[in-house]
């Protein structure tokens, strides 16, 4: 029990750190005084938020499907917690930049869009998660040139790194071979 509480505290501390980190960057964005660039940055962050919301729902659907066995289920819940930390940090930054965070779609809407009814096995769930994580990593890499605030671009790279870490773990669970060539993400 003590260990669980410690883990929860660590989670809270990590979230707070992430939010504080991004809040610091937000001040830099304001300091630049470039309204158009800041507005565009808010747009990028909101698109990222929509992506994170979808990932949270996808992992929820996977966790509730009854298809995931331990320890895969525990890993899925851990990865979902990472996406929740990303979500919280993005919402805090969007608000501090004067934007309005987009609302999350319902799990049912996400399930329909991702055709979750077709998931029949643990492997199916892992394949979906693997595909979404790779797409998310590439999305974060692909928007880097568009940020007006280079500090936010760096945050995007850090978010991409988390998604790549998820993809790598999922690929290991699926016993997929590692990429034969370098620079396989963002390409």
């Amino acid at each position, binding site marked *: 029990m003590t260990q669980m509480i410690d883990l929860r505290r660590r989670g809270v501390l990590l979230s707070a750190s992430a939010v504080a980190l991004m809040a610091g960057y937000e001040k830099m964005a304001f300091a630049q005084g470039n309204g158009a660039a800041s507005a565009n940055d808010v*747009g990028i962050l909101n698109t990222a938020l929509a*992506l994170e919301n979808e990932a949270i729902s996808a992992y929820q659907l996977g966790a509730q499907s009854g298809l995931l066995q331990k320890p895969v289920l525990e890993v899925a819940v851990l990865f979902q917690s990472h996406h929740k930390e990303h979500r919280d940090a993005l919402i805090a930054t969007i608000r501090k930049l004067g934007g309005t965070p987009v609302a999350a779609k319902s799990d049912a809407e996400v399930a329909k869009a991702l055709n979750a009814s077709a998931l029949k096995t643990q492997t199916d769930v892992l394949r979906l998660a693997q595909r979404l994580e790779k797409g998310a990593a590439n999305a974060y890499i*692909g928007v880097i*040139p568009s940020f007006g605030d280079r500090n936010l671009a760096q945050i995007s790279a850090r978010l991409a790194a988390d998604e790549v870490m998820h993809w790598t773990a999922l690929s290991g669970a699926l016993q997929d071979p590692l990429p034969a060539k370098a620079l396989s993400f963002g390409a």
Partner: protein
Amino acid sequence: MLARAAAVDTAAAADAQHGQELYESRCGGCHSLDANRVGPAHRGVYGRKAGSAPNFAYSTAVKSSTVVWEEKTLDAWLTNPQALIPGQRMNFRVAAAGDRADIIAYLRQQSGK
């Protein structure tokens, strides 16, 4: 004239199969062919007006745009969306011209054009 010839050459050389791989790995984080997700559904995108996929909540900028998606506009969009339609929300860029051409070839194929 030379630019036009180069564009035709690029389109002719485009590889829809490679475009599918690129679409799934690079666009698939936000898009699907047949479902609105973070971004709009893409089947039928080639040849349709920007902001016209049914039931997708577009930005005002894209909704009010007069852009029609074909080779040239999709290439400009994937190069730098904000330069083509200021105020859009995608912002994802594909740097390599060959990759853009292949993705466009795939989208065109999936649009039956």
